Structures are given as structure tokens and as C-alpha cells.
């Protein structure tokens, strides 16, 4: 397995440009953007991470994880634990939350992935509910009433703390997409696709299916935890029902499905599109209607356009636009 694309491929060029642009708008206040844009942009980028993480399991391998909200919230609460213990800095919270969720993913996978894929899906769904029960009963992290996390108002050299968090999430999004793309292009990723197409045939052909599935849940769990890690700082008040909100699970499924679940680009397109629409709709229309829209769009896309937007584009451009 050789490391792909050390020379500057279009992907890495794009990633570098986006990161530099992020530095430009957050540190140097280029374009003089309103803080609210960063506030909303953070959420959209967070969905890029969650959708990409979900897609490693769901899109590449066809194993549906309904427990995104659970992983996300465990990541967020892992940060709260560190904060309550010794006021840990964000740089420590992120890897810690990632590792906790990676272990959670591994444990989930180990218990359920030897069975039919649907049991994994059901177990993740139930897991989110039980984790919520545990958190509600755990007074150290605030229990049902929630916990306050004090954050500094400003963070040099970014100015407003939200701008700093936006930049962190931007880096995490680039990291998540790079990991997903690297997995997709590697030998491991081809193993994933073989499992999705026909698990028994893959097993017969010598693909180590259980090991690959465990790798996928671990990586996917890690990325979801990482996405949740800054959440407590972002909202500054965390409580179980907001951290375990079903909207994370729904969006993490809907975004890759809408964008196109078979490539790394799909969840990115889906998250940017649906995430932005939701941010606009929450402000301009009501938030319930906005949720309804997500549900309807999800059902519409899985029925009418199973390959998502990327699939539609490929069809229209005759397969020329292969964005690898």
C-alpha cells in the first residue's frame, strides 16, 4: 500500500486552498464576515465531518449506522469529562473524544458485525438511547440538567472564539475527507466495496471481512467523536437532549444519500447543500418544518435518485467527470 498523491494532486491543492482561505477569513478578517456566518458555517462543517464519517461505514460498505447522534454526543461528553477534571484545552479534547468513540465503535462492531448487517443497524439505534440514559444518570457531567462549559470570549490570533472553532472544524473537515478519500482509494477501500457488493463472495475471495468491518467502525467512530469534541465549547451549555438530538443521525444518513454515497465527494456535497439549506431555513422558516424537509428529501432521494447528486452528475456528463 503506497501513500497516494504526495505530489500535489487537485485534491490536495483544493484542500490547501480551502485551509488558507480559512486562515484568511478567520485570522485576517478578510471580507469582513459577520460572526453569525461563522456560527452557521461551523454547523455545516460539523455535518461534513459527520456525513463523511457515516459514509465510511454506510456508503462504502453498506452497513447503516443509526447511532451517529450517540457517537457525536459521547465525543462531546468526553470533552466535558476532561474539562471537569482539569479544564483541558481543546487540543487535548479532540484526540481524547476521538479515541473514546473509536473504542466505542470497535466494541459495537465486535458485538454485532459478525451477524447480518441489519443487526448492526438496530444495535446502533438502541445504543444511542442507552448512552443517553447513562449520561442522564451521570451527575459528574451534569446529568439531565446539563453542564456549563466556560469558554474564553476571544482566542488570539482569531479574534472571536467562534471564529477559532470554525477554523478548527474546517481543519477537522479537511482531515475527515482526506481520511475517507485515502481509505476509498486504498486496498482497504476496495475491500469495503467488495463487502458492499457481495459479502460472501468477498469472504471467499480472501477479503478479511470482519477485520475490514472493524477498521471501518473504528475509523468512523473516531471521526464522529472528533466532530462532537468542540460541541460543548460551541454551545457553552450542553444537555443530553441537545447532544443526542436525532437530527444528527438523520442528517448523517440523509447527506451522503443525497450527495451520493459511493464516493468521498458525495457526503461533502450533501452536507454543504443540505446543511446550508437547513441553516437558512431555521432562520427564515420554522425549525420543525426544516426537520420535515430533511425527512421528505431523504425519502425522495432514496426512492428517486438512489445514486445521489454525484450519480446524477455522472449520468449527465457521461461518466467523464470522475473526480478522483
Amino acid at each position: 500500500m503506497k501513500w497516494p498523491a504526495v505530489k500535489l494532486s487537485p485534491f490536495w491543492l483544493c484542500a490547501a486552498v480551502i485551509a488558507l482561505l480559512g486562515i484568511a477569513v478567520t485570522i485576517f478578517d478578510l471580507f469582513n464576515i459577520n460572526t453569525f456566518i461563522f456560527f452557521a458555517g461551523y454547523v455545516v462543517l460539523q455535518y461534513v465531518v459527520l456525513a463523511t464519517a457515516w459514509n465510511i461505514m454506510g456508503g462504502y460498505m453498506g452497513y447503516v449506522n443509526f447511532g451517529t447522534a450517540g457517537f457525536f454526543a459521547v465525543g462531546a461528553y468526553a470533552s466535558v469529562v476532561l474539562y471537569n477534571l482539569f479544564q483541558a484545552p481543546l487540543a487535548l479534547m479532540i484526540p481524547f473524544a476521538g479515541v473514546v468513540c473509536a473504542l466505542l465503535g470497535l466494541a459495537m462492531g465486535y458485538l454485532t458485525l459478525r451477524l447480518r448487517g441489519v443487526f448492526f443497524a438496530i444495535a446502533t439505534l438502541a445504543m444511542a438511547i442507552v448512552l443517553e440514559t447513562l449520561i442522564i444518570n451521570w451527575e459528574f457531567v451534569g446529568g439531565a440538567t446539563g453542564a456549563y462549559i466556560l469558554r474564553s470570549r476571544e482566542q488570539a490570533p482569531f479574534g472571536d472564539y467562534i471564529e477559532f472553532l470554525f477554523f478548527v472544524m474546517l481543519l477537522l473537515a479537511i482531515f475527515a475527507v482526506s481520511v475517507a478519500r485515502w481509505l476509498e482509494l486504498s486496498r482497504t477501500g476496495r475491500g469495503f466495496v467488495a463487502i458492499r457488493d457481495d459479502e460472501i463472495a468477498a469472504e471467499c475471495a480472501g477479503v478479511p471481512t470482519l477485520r475490514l468491518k472493524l477498521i471501518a467502525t473504528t475509523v468512523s467512530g473516531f471521526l464522529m467523536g472528533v466532530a462532537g469534541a468542540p460541541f460543548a465549547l460551541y454551545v457553552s451549555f450542553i444537555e443530553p437532549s441537545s447532544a443526542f438530538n436525532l437530527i444528527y443521525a438523520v442528517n448523517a444518513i440523509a447527506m451522503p444519500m443525497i450527495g451520493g454515497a459511493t464516493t468521498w465527494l458525495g457526503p461533502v456535497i450533501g452536507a454543504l447543500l443540505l446543511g446550508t439549506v437547513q441553516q437558512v431555513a431555521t432562520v427564515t422558516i420554522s425549525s420543525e418544518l426544516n426537520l420535515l424537509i430533511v425527512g421528505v428529501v431523504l425519502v425522495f432521494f432514496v426512492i428517486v435518485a438512489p445514486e445521489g447528486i454525484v450519480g446524477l452528475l455522472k449520468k449527465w456528463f457521461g461518466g467523464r467527470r470522475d473526480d478522483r
Partner: protein
Amino acid sequence: MFTVDLLFNALIAGVLLGGFYAAVSLGLTVSFGQLNIVNIAHPAFVILGSYIAYMCNSLWGLDPILTGIIFIPVFFLIGAGAYRLYYESFERKDDEALRGLAFFFGVMFIIEVALIMVYGVDFRTVQASYIGQSWKAGGIGVPTRMFVPFCVAIAMFSAVYLYMSRTFNGRAIKAVAQDRLALQLMGADPVKIKQLGFGISIGTAALAGALLIIIIPVEPSVGRLYIGQVFAIAVLAGLGSIPGTLVAGLILGIAESLVSTFFGPSWAPAVAFGILLAALAFRPQGLFGR
């Protein structure tokens, strides 16, 4: 804290609760266990049934159980229609694993949000003569709001069990996921049979929902809390076994009742998950599995 009265009360409450859980899971045993359709929206349909019972009760004072029975045919038609859509969109293309699951997840979400938009997130209850009474013998009490739903649940169970084991169509439903070709050779259309089976499965949700709102107040998102329970029961039962569903329901009901009596009610949701994980890890074929 531990007394014999408390234990007996917990056991009786557990049995009554378990009968009701079994009724909620019955539809899933048919759809997931027998037809191989992973309908994670099933609890959402149950909640829809609860809200219909609530609506008829608050507008016209209709008895919730009667409402549940009246709406069984309506839910049957909804289920049959939903299966048709599912078949045309996913099953025929052999694509039910990923997109079929996402489809039902979306349906669950739509039902929940639609109910929130219409009724808000307040808890709703129904009025009926048998709610709020209780029979007492010594230190042991049997609340009628649990006992009446338990009896109705058992009756529904018996009806579905008899239908599935005595009629041609019922047996065909049991057979369709196992061997489509053999079923076709017997002169039955597998798609129509699955449509019938899925219709029955959603039909039971109408009555189960009415029972739910008799037992406890309901708000739109409680449906999700029951996903753990219903799947735990369906898996523990051994997918597709109707008597197994009753036994598994009773086990879960008793376990939950004991835990919430002796450890506190906030721990009860973890019981279902524990049973589900244990069943998946140690005995995925269930208690009554083939």
C-alpha cells in the same frame, strides 16, 4: 428497601407490561421476522395509532380500544401501500439493505416531526372508565389501566397466531421469506402475500398504539424509546416466532419492572438494550429460533 410486597407488585406490573410490549412487537415479528422487512418505523406507526386514539377520544369521547380496532383496516391499507412502494423502489432492485433502511428511517422521522407540528411536544392522555382504578389484595395492587390493555393484547395475539397457523394466507406469509419459488408453485403471488403480511403488521400498530396511550401518556418522540424494546423482543423471540414474541415480551417486561422498582426508573431503558446486545452476542437465533 426490599420487601416481598414490592417484589410481587413489580412482578405483576412486569407481566402486564410484558404483555403490552409483546403486542407492540407483534407487528415487527411479522414484518422483520417473517417477511424480512426491517421496518424500524414500526414504533412510529404505534405512536401514530396512539395519537389517533387521543384525537378520537378528545374530540368525540370515543373509547381508545374501540378506536384502535376501528383503525386496524385503515392501518392495514397504509401498510399494504407502504409495502408496494418499498417493493417497487427497493426490494425488486435488491437494494433493501442500505436504502430500504434509510427509507424507513425517513418515514419514522417524518411521522414524528409531523406529529410534533400538529400536536406539539406535550404529553397526551386519554379518558376511559377503566383508567385510574385498581384492584387491591393485601399489599398487592393491580391497576386496571394495565390489566385491560394486557387482556386486549393477549386477544390480539391469539387472533394473529390463529390466523398465521390455520389459514392458507397466514401460512403463506410465514413461508414467503423462506422460499418464494415454492410459494409460487403453490399458486400464491409472493408480492401480494408480503403486502398482506405487512398490512397486518402495520394494522396491529393501530391497536397497540391505543393500548400504549392507555398505559402511559404519549408524546411524539417516545416512539424512538420503544425501538430498543421492540427489536430486543423480536430478536430474543427468535425472528418470526409468535409465541416466542409473547415469552420474550414477558421476560423484558418483568426485567424492566424489577430494575425500575429496585434501581430507579431512569435505568429502565438500558434493560432492553442490554437484553438486545446479549441476545445478539450469545444467541442471535433467539430463544425460539429455528
